[in-house]
């Protein structure tokens, strides 16, 4: 068995570097002290040395021809003039794609209802003054947290005046009323999820304490819309919550994909209804830009690679 096989990897590296003069002065002194004391280490060093000498004895061979370049070879193997532009175009398209995706993602992160739900209460308006603008087709369908839920639930009670109006969600006009929160709220009757009743019974606004208790209960729809529209809009998004909110209208399909379309209504003290829109709503061309830049980057990269391989 070779002595080298018994060496640790560290000792092997030290001996190998020692042969090439690649050890520091300190490491060299230590190793030489050990070599004086350890005969096995000395044999290993001799084995390595003889191996290196053998390999170094390999003769240099003559090249079969000259490798000097001719103008023809250089011209034939030159990269096309468009190559640097293709490289630059690929880089720019990739950066633009990353930027578009970043805007999309960050926009949804910073302007999502989740972040809004944590805003101070005063920024989202007093619950007592909550109003829901049912004239807009893109209506609230879900709430992010308890605060938003309460507000939305309050909004339900506000909309009781438009119960039975099937055109809600279709942009029909509806009255917006504001109800004070002081009114007591009776326990709402149970209703299976996903179903909406016809004209909903009158129910006064729910007090904040009652909201917690009723959160898991089914609240009948306050405003009637077409049951089909309601279920289609809410079935996947919030099967438990939707009935409690009443009659939200379906959101645009592309806005609902990927869990984007969170928006809820709140009213500042002056009574105006405001709502948050997703990044895609604010920048409708963003998705097109993402796809466009992504496709452009891939195409240019393929052309660049092709030009490189041909040269």
């Amino acid at each position, binding site marked *: 068995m070779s002595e080298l096989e018994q060496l640790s990897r560290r000792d092997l590296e030290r001996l190998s570097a020692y042969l090439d003069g690649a050890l520091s002065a300190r490491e060299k002194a230590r190793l030489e002290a050990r070599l004086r004391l350890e005969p096995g280490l000395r044999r290993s060093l001799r084995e390595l040395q003889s191996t290196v000498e053998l390999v170094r004895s*390999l003769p240099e061979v003559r090249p079969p021809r000259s490798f000097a370049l001719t103008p023809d070879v250089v011209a034939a193997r030159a990269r096309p003039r468009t190559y640097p532009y293709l490289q630059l175009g690929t880089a720019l398209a990739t950066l633009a794609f990353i930027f578009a995706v970043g805007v999309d993602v960050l926009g949804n992160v910073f302007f999502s209802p989740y972040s809004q739900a944590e805003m101070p209460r005063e920024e989202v308006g007093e619950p007592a003054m909550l109003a829901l603008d049912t004239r807009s087709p893109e209506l609230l369908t879900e709430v992010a947290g308890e605060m938003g839920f309460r507000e939305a639930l309050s909004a339900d009670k506000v909309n009781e005046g438009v119960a039975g109006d099937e055109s809600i969600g279709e942009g029909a006009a509806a009255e917006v009323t504001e109800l004070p929160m002081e009114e007591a709220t009776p326990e709402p009757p149970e209703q299976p999820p996903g179903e909406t009743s016809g004209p909903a019974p009158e129910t006064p606004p729910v007090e904040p304490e009652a909201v917690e208790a009723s959160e898991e209960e089914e609240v009948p729809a306050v405003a009637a819309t077409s049951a089909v529209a309601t279920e289609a809009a809410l079935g996947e998004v919030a099967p438990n919550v939707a009935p409690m909110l009443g009659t939200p209208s379906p959101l645009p399909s592309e806005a609902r994909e990927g869990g984007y379309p969170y928006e809820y209504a709140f009213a500042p003290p002056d009574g105006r209804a405001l709502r948050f829109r997703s990044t895609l709503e604010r920048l409708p061309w963003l998705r097109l830009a993402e796809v466009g830049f992504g496709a452009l980057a891939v195409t240019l990269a393929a052309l660049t690679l092709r030009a490189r391989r041909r040269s």
Partner: protein
Amino acid sequence: MIREAQRGDLDAFNRLVLAYQSRMFNQAYRVMGDPDSAADVAQEAFISAYRNLRQYRGGSFRAWLSRIVTNACYDELRRRKRRPATSLEALMAVSDGVRMNDPTPLPSRAEGPESAAERGELTQAIEECLQALPLEFRVVAVMVDVQGYDYREVAEAIGKPLGTVKSRLARARARLRDCLQGHGELLPASFRLENEAIR
């Protein structure tokens, strides 16, 4: 001369080629194992060097060239894996019993025919053991032990840290030792005496 070549002077570049082509060809030959592939690799490397000469920013020019040759070797070996027919032809040429197209060694000191024959067998044994090494070990062993680069140049050529170069070289030498012990009858007396002393 390098600066002239960087300005696009082809004659200046060809003077560089003549100065370094033997070294680069030998590096490619010891890594690839056959002269035809080595010639292709060397030619590709010089074309690539001419095209990218402006990226050379000083330091060891031979290390810079070696890096291009090393990368060209890797590329060629990867291409061979994808198209094994190419390497099979090379193998068939070798397996005919006589190694066709063996490059001519540069003339050294005069020696007798028996010595030359023994030398040839020993060289072949060392080359076989080199070829048996994993590629990353082989590249380092060729550059340091065959061509005499220092560790820093090798690190620059392969784009790895010094520690990696040391480690790979040590392990390559240990494996070469193990492999060469199998050709004991060809080895010089000093090599065999070491083995006997160990046993």
